[in-house]
């Protein structure tokens, strides 16, 4: 049955099933779940609350960005690489299930995870760190960070399509940790040496962190340039995804 002709209702049910499968996947493979969820939250509790009580609001924005970045890159990068190697996608392609469902399912998993990280950090900040925000700002932080994951979804997807399941975790760690540090997610960019400061705007997490800082009222500013930067990065990573996709098709022939 041609996917394009599948009735819209069937298709939605199919997406729902992919989402549900992803949830089961999260429950059944805690190896991914625990570190991605626990580490950023633990770091924030240490560095944002205990060690720098004056900077709790600032570090809430940047560490939440850090958490979201990890959740997304690992869900897509490692998840896709592993499942691809297991032959799971070859199997799905033989069924009438829409392939977009894989991406939607993965995105849901990453978004759910990100939301859990953000809300946990927010409650630590609010209940233990003395951070006081309007309801609109708490929800705004969640909304900005979830919607701002687009470039990282694409980056993870691209890497997941290109890398072998053994290489994926290593490569993604190599991308993820320096990217987080150099974008000022652990230490504000303003504390870097001047030459290093100029690097940050060329990295996508920097722009997402700026948006998070703005929406929580920590730093005033105009958000549009940062959204534009995130879109441009998304376009670049989309090219990576296309290359990866073509390569997978070519290899499975």
């Amino acid at each position, binding site marked *: 049955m041609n996917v394009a002709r599948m009735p819209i209702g069937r298709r939605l049910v199919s997406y729902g*099933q992919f989402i*549900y499968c992803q*949830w*089961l996947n999260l*429950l059944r493979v805690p190896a991914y779940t625990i570190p991605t969820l626990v580490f950023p939250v633990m770091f924030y509790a240490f560095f944002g609350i205990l060690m720098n009580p*004056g*900077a709790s*609001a*600032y570090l809430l924005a940047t560490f939440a960005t850090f958490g979201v970045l990890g959740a997304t890159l690992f869900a897509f990068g490692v998840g896709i690489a592993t499942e691809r190697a297991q032959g799971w996608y070859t199997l799905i392609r033989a069924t009438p299930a829409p392939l977009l469902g894989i991406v939607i399912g993965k995105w849901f998993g990453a978004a*759910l995870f990100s*939301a*859990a990280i953000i*809300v946990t950090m*927010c*409650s630590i900040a*609010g*209940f233990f760190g003395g*951070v*006081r*925000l*309007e*309801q609109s700002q*708490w*929800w705004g932080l*969640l909304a900005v960070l979830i919607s701002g994951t687009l470039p990282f979804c694409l980056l993870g997807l691209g890497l997941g399509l290109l890398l072998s399941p053994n290489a994926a975790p290593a490569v993604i760690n190599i991308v993820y940790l320096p990217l987080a540090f150099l974008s000022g997610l652990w230490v504000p960019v303003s504390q870097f040496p001047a030459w290093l400061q100029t690097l940050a705007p060329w990295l996508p997490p920097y722009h997402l962190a700026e948006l998070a800082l703005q929406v929580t*009222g*920590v*730093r*005033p*500013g*105009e958000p549009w340039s940062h959204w534009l930067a995130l879109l441009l990065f998304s376009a670049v990573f989309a090219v990576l995804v296309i290359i990866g996709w073509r390569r997978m098709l070519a290899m499975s022939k």
Partner: protein
Amino acid sequence: MKPSSSLVGLLLLIGLLVVTLLMLPGPVPRSANELSASDSAVIALSNARIFDGESVHEQATLVIRDGRIDALRLDDALPEEADVIDIAGGTLLPGLIDAHVHAFNSARKDALRFGVTTVLDMFRPPFDLDQTRAQRGALERTDQADLYSAGFLATADGGHGTQYGIEVPTLSDPDQADAWVEARLSEGSDYIKIVIESGAAWGGHLPTLDAATVQALVRATHARGEMAVAHVSTQAAARIAVEAGVDGLVHLFADEPLDPALAATLVEKDVFVIPTTTVLAGSHGQSGRGWLESDERLASRLSTEQRQTLEQSFPGSQLRASRWPMVLTSLRALHEAGVVLLAGSDAPNPATAHGASLLHEIKLLTEAGLSTIEALQAATSVPAARFGLDHRGCLQPGCRADIIWVDGNPLADIGALRQVEGVWKNGRRVDAAIETSVVPAAETPALDVPLDLHRAGRWLPSTDEFMGGQSRAELQLDSSGRRVTVSGELNPGFAFPYAGTMWNPGDEIMSAVNLSRAETLSLQLEATSGRFQLMIFSGDDPAAPPIRIDLVANETNRIDLTEYSGLDRSRLRAFGVYATGPAESFEFTIRDAGLQ
């Protein structure tokens, strides 16, 4: 698909996340009794141009809560509970940081009235540093600027810094450096100031620390994780300091033009410079007094002590006026080479006043080529970063609510800095009015004018011994009673040696008389060579710093006494006429001295 337990789990998880977010604490509404009218805990300064220490926001609102900046908002939303103050047409800046002062007497109060909310002292006795440290850590209401201090300075026995009548622990050997630094830091010094001063720039000779001792001091300071800064007045001394690895120079030298190679070394070693341009301007006949007093509101905030220090001049400052362009050229070259500059006034030296002179310093920095924003950064975010002053020099959330409200736009016109409309310290508005405590002058005897100074009062020898110096003077009163001849020697001891004679109106030395009607002092000064200065002592306190005015030899000097607002003619105590150099021995004659 049957609803399974894991699907229920998923829905529960999502529900839990939503509920948690809804429960998160919002900004705490204040109860009415917590909010007193005068001491509102939440203030919104709206409609303002805001320089936040780094950059400018053209239309923004600053929210102050509990002594700190709560938010810098670019939208129009105001917290409901806030007292709103409309800043339309004005600019908010972080409370300024003066990176070079000597904080005696009412210095910290005087500074605060002009929006200087933090001062970095570069030498004062350290006996109250525990108290000042506690004050700057708190967010209480205060009428004083916060103080960071070097405590005692490191100098040689009998060297610069020992002449002020304060006993300073000196050192003479590199081996003493470690214990000396340890002692200062345990007294509460925030950083270490090292004096390299041979007196050469002032035409004198002073004992000074050698390069080896300077190096040992810097090493000992850095080993304890603190900063070492150096006083220099010559390029040679600056080289010694930089070679030793100091973190900053607290003066720009003016003995010779800046060597570009030195500027490059300063950049390479990341050494900052606090040029203290305003005090250099004062000592080169370019006092900031005119610029400061041309704004009436600013002038009205100057205390008597501030007026007096501002009206003083360095001996021979007019003679050095021709060298002033060189100073500005050096400063410009430093800036263009990329050397980090910090604004500092060196108040209360002659021709400076606490607080006000930092505004003049910022203006002079713009004359030397800094943009207005760079000059303002040099008085806010830059010193905060260099000296590790957290939450100061900034108007971002979390920073201390130390704020100046200036009427106008100092980013377009630096002159607007003089229009200080309001100052907040720790989130509370500072009372900018000065307490005027005029003592009734009823018991002061009055003298009529015209008055011949050779007929009334007494001429007495007078030297810098009063200030701890070692100069000598002898008087010869002419039998006709129409002239006074003074001879003597200027000896090193005081920073600016002086010797001469002092006319006392009464029988007791420096007892006050009421000379309110005297408007002009005239006198003829005869000498073959040398520099001369008039000092006028007046007011409540005989020990208050005098007004200093340069005199011209072999001419009739007419001084308009009404021009000096720091001069209290209703309580005039003495006129002094002094030789100030450059030669060691001097002789001069005063004739036809009179008041009209």
